[in-house]
């Protein structure tokens, strides 16, 4: 009895410690990004950083440090990815949770989870040799290394997250809602769209946000598949260089302590803030619509 209580307490403390530690690590990372990032502004003006679309720290002439183009690129690629992944992902989740037979589900589920295990380099490679050329052919472009290519690949990469989380959310909707709807003469589709999906709203939002986080943070795939041109993109058919790609490409070469080095931390800090912002918004939406039984 005594020892059981002790173990209980010890475990509680352990979890508390783990939670505190992860918060500290998070704060530490952000603090590190911020401290280094701020130093960039000793030599770069805030106006240039936030309002110029010209990023060329390794310039032949005068280096420039404007992030507008890569910020826009990041949003463009992520937005495109979500346009593809959200309907597909929620559709698949609804199918798995509501329509599919147990047997079908048993086959599909592991395949979808396997999708998450494909290394991003491989996805990037598929983007170069298959998806890109396909896009080029369909839309009559000279090459497919475009924002669209990145969006498609990122959509595929965020699908497992979206499907898994959304399926759980849909599955957790009480069966009584479904029966209530059927009893009023609703068919499967109506029941799904009018009752079940609205009831699992918060979980689905969480799924989308998690998928979006995956897409925004993904580096290798976009690095390989979107062409990385520095020019401001005019749409999905232009090559783009995202924030993550920029950091990945340039961080390896910069000598410590240079303006270029610090500027990459500034980009990293901004990326961190964006992710944080998205998560906070998501929490908010989720809390607002949470089902209280």
């Amino acid at each position, binding site marked *: 009895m005594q020892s059981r209580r002790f173990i209980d307490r010890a475990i509680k403390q352990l979890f508390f410690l783990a939670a505190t530690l992860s918060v500290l690590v998070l704060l530490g990372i952000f603090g590190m990004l911020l401290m280094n990032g701020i130093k960039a502004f000793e030599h770069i003006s805030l106006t240039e950083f936030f309002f110029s679309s010209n990023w060329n720290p390794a310039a032949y002439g005068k280096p420039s440090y404007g992030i507008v183009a890569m910020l826009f690129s990041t949003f463009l690629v992520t937005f495109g990815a979500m346009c593809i992944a959200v309907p597909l992902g929620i559709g698949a989740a609804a199918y798995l949770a509501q329509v599919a037979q147990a047997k079908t589900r048993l086959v599909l589920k592991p395949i979808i989870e396997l999708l998450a295990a494909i290394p991003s380099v491989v996805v990037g490679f598929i983007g170069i040799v298959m998806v890109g050329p396909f896009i080029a052919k369909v839309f009559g472009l000279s090459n497919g290394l475009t924002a669209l290519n990145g969006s498609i690949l990122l959509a595929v990469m965020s699908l497992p997250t979206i499907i898994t989380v959304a399926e759980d959310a849909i599955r957790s909707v009480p069966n*009584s*809602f*479904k*029966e*209530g709807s*059927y*009893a*009023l*003469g609703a068919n499967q589709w109506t029941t799904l769209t009018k*009752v079940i999906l609205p009831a699992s709203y918060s979980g689905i939002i969480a799924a989308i946000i998690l998928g979006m986080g995956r897409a925004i943070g993904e580096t290798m795939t976009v690095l390989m598949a979107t062409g990385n041109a520095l020019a401001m993109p005019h749409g999905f058919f232009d090559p783009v260089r995202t924030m993550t790609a920029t950091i990945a490409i340039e961080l390896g070469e910069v000598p410590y302590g240079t303006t270029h080095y610090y500027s990459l931390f500034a980009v990293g800090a901004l990326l961190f803030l964006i992710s944080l912002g998205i998560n906070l918004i998501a929490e908010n939406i989720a809390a607002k619509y949470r089902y209280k039984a």
Partner: protein
Amino acid sequence: MKTKLQVKDLHLAYGTKKVLKGITMDIPENKIVALIGPSGCGKSTLLRAMNRMHDLSPEVHIMGEILLEGDNIYAPGRDAVDVRRKIGMVFQKPNPFPKSIFDNIAYGLKIAGQHDKQQLQEVVERTLKSSYLWEEVKDDLDKSALSLSGGQQQRMCIARAVAVEPEVLLMDEPCSALDPISTAKIENLMLELKKDYTIVIVTHNMQQAQRVADLTAFMYFGEVIEYAPTEELFGNPQVELTRNYLEGNFG
């Protein structure tokens, strides 16, 4: 007396477990029929068979017929959605959708293609009035139905079922989770609704069956043991098993 619903030699199994073993009973129009019997004897199962609710569970096997005004609701090609529109159901536990009161009640009409705001408003008001809920909620139609009390939720669910104007209303222990006052309100409501609907109710409450039902069926282990006008069944049961049950010897 016109027969509304006719159950003919109905067998039902969950997988290999036989739960209904040849049920046959006629349910007359504009009457209330109560199903009583010990827990697990198959009352809910029979009720759910009456509006094809079992269609959702692939492991359920059904044999036999249920005729709605002479047409088998299990006939091949018969649309389950259409059957359920004619045979509505109220569940044991109130199950309002996480939507506003208005949207809950308008749901059945909206999905049937009725989008005229004015008309929806009319129906919502009428059904809420008929379920004696109007006075309590008329200012809160936009509020979440989940904010209602249990008794109010159940009356709203009845209003919701009535709003689509079914021909038959199935109720599975609709008062089991409610206090006596709410229960009394719902019993009154049933007697009121009887004018327009045929009602089948599952109940564990003998007094309730006696108060509302015109006919009562006693079920035992998947069979209808005795089915008679309520007064006869309670006053002078013909079968030993029924008498034992009513005297409280088991169940």
